[in-house]
């Protein structure tokens, strides 16, 4: 351990929540890590970070997956002069065997700081802090052991998905399979940035959206169904008998007043035609209510955080798509590729798909990617009279044909 005092960070070793400072100190035998702690103490003194913008570093054949990082006071902190990050593509659903986890730890002990994020916000297992010299050997060893890098920069970012059918009764489709399939299909897009900006895909098995797909994915894939909520009448009676306030906690909170509870008969019914499949009643009575059987996904587009033109929530472009495992999700991939092609051709530098649609208009987007306008795409129609017509929608007059 360094003999430098770290009085500020020491304060964050106190308290009941697991301490990241203690985590860093567990790897302090590594001189790079030890100096990273000292540098962090300096940031706490100066109230600012001490990192510069990333330079171009990476591994052979890839343009993404490595974030270059350099200290801005290398003369004082030579061991963290280079402190690059590698993003390792996580297995779908973030499942690991203990041996797989140990394998990652062993590789990272050899090649880096021994610090990780499990996981980064996009979904990757983040290996935090190594030198330029170690990048290629580390990647080679990862690859030998069956790991690959995730995305960074202007490319397809690592897709991620919820726990899905592996451990959830609400999974409307196989989120893990779709995530794995898309990730493998689009390895080139993932590893070689060649787009206007980043593109994120997040996959949730139901409208509870446990991977926040609507808020942060350019393309949000969210499970839903077309038929009826399945009701186990006996289980409803058990909830009622247990004293649950079914009327107050379930029925009264239904956004479309599409369910009802007959207290005398202890009978719960759903008006499926008016149900919007929000998941509330199913969440409240999971033993009694289940998702339908004719399942697929709603496809939404455009979600992003604030930079640049405001935060957007993804909006509906396909109300229902039957995700077909057997043909390798051909319909989805066909749509995705048409979207990428239009975006790639039309977007400015660092323009996300949602911002491009905002600039060009939904009508152009729909026409270009071959989607029909549907009322499910909007909260309400426009209130202004400023709309365009396509030439073939108008009576065409020949030149000189004035009457």
């Amino acid at each position, binding site marked *: 351990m360094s003999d430098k005092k770290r009085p500020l960070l020491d304060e964050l070793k106190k308290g009941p929540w697991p301490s990241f400072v203690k985590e860093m100190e567990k790897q302090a035998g590594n001189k790079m890590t030890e100096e990273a702690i000292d540098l962090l103490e300096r940031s706490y003194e100066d109230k600012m970070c001490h990192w510069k913008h990333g330079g171009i570093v990476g591994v052979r054949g890839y343009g993404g997956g490595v974030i270059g990082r350099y200290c801005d006071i290398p003369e004082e902190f030579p061991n963290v002069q280079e402190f690059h990050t590698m993003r390792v593509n996580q297995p*779908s659903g973030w499942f690991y065997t203990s041996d797989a986890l140990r394998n990652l730890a062993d590789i990272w002990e050899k090649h880096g700081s021994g610090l990780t994020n*499990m996981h980064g916000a996009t979904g990757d297992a983040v290996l935090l802090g190594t030198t330029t010299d170690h990048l290629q050997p580390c990647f080679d060893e990862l690859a*030998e052991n069956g790991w690959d890098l995730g995305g960074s920069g202007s490319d397809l970012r690592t897709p991620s998905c919820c726990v899905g059918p592996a451990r959830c009764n609400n999974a409307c489709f196989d989120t893990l399979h779709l995530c794995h399939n898309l990730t493998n299909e689009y390895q080139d897009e993932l590893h070689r940035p060649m787009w206007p900006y980043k593109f994120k895909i997040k996959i949730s098995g139901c*409208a509870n959206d446990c991977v926040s797909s609507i808020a942060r994915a350019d393309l949000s894939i969210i499970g839903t169904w077309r038929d009826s909520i399945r009701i186990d009448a006996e289980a409803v009676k058990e909830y009622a008998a247990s004293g649950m306030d079914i009327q107050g906690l379930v029925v009264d909170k239904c956004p479309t007043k599409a369910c009802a509870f007959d207290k005398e008969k202890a009978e719960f019914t759903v008006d499926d035609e008016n149900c919007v499949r929000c998941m509330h009643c199913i969440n409240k009575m999971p033993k009694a209510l289940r998702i339908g059987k004719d399942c697929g996904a709603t496809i939404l587009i455009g979600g992003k955080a604030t*930079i640049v033109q405001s935060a957007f929530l993804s909006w509906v472009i396909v109300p229902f798509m039957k995700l077909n495992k057997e043909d390798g999700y051909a319909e989805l991939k066909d749509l995705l590729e048409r979207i990428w092609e239009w975006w790639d051709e039309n977007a400015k530098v660092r323009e996300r798909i949602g911002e491009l649609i905002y600039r060009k208009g939904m009508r152009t987007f729909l026409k270009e990617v071959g989607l029909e306008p549907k009322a499910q795409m909007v909260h309400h129609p426009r209130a202004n009279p400023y709309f365009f017509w396509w030439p073939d929608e108008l009576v065409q007059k020949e030149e000189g044909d004035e009457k």
Partner: protein
Amino acid sequence: MVAKGRTDIGPPHYEEMLPQIIKDNYGKWKYFERIKPGVLKHVSETGDELYTVRAGSPRLLSITSLREFADIADKYCNGHLRFTSRHNVEFLVDDPEKVEPLIAELEERGWPVGGTGNCLNNIIHTQGWIHCHSAATDASGPVKAVMDELFDYFKTDDLPAKLKISMACCLNMCGAVHCSDIAFVGIHRTIPKIDDEGVAKNCEIPNVIAACPTGAIRPNPKAKSVSVNEEKCMYCGNCYTVCPSMKIIDPENDGLAIFVGGKVSNARSGPSFSRLAIPWVPNNPPRWDELVSAIKNLVEIWVKNAKKGERYGEWIERIGWEKFFEIAELPFTDKHIDDFIFSVPTFRTTTNFKYTK
């Protein structure tokens, strides 16, 4: 042994990572129960039962801890575990007898069990000063300080509804914190300081200009650089992201803004953005006292006033934002009124409102 230079192999297949009980019941889960804070029980159509024990982590994890998790998974879970999107680690147990000993061991080793159902979940957050060049504040430090203060809420599940708190260390908002019950975000309050030589040498001027959401950046041909219109700049730092010579970090003026009332789930009402509650608290390491007490107050007023089942934003929607500011005893300022590009629909275009003191 595979040849070196192998690329594009993709991630390991998830099926290799799944425990037998999940392979046996994949897609067959019938329902689940919340046994107690941090423990879920999933029941399959086959009758199999799977117990999940969730423990919080600081996201920044050492490989020593990863090996510790692996050892625990070997001891209790036949060598299987998973992580959640909010930095928790979940141990998957097929034998109910092992649940309590597992919890005891996790707690003994300092990994708190909780965060399910109507608990406070773990705070999803960004890198901060440990690795990011554009951080306006640290991330792990403020998160640790807030979680220490709210620790009991992680361990108990009697909040009005679930509570998701998120943190981003600058407006890039990696992790998209903008739809959280409570979000705190590192912000700047002063315009970037332009290093003309650096801009000329290292930056693509058209990109710098295009990066500005308010059109505040103009070319400065004399210096082969740019200038910033002070009246238009909203300190987002996007120019700094594309050009390191537009330095926006200002330790004395940077700080954190706190937003409330967002959610991502579609349950009941649709997903919604968090809205500004407190425009600025100082960036005050190591324990961020002002931030912690502000967030504690925001949680406590919700706990005290919300009805059962109401997420933060649903509570505010019911009582109205004007009442929220009154109850929270927070000043309502010109900062709270939107003046960015989609502002007008946020103005109150009705005479229906409540009077406040």
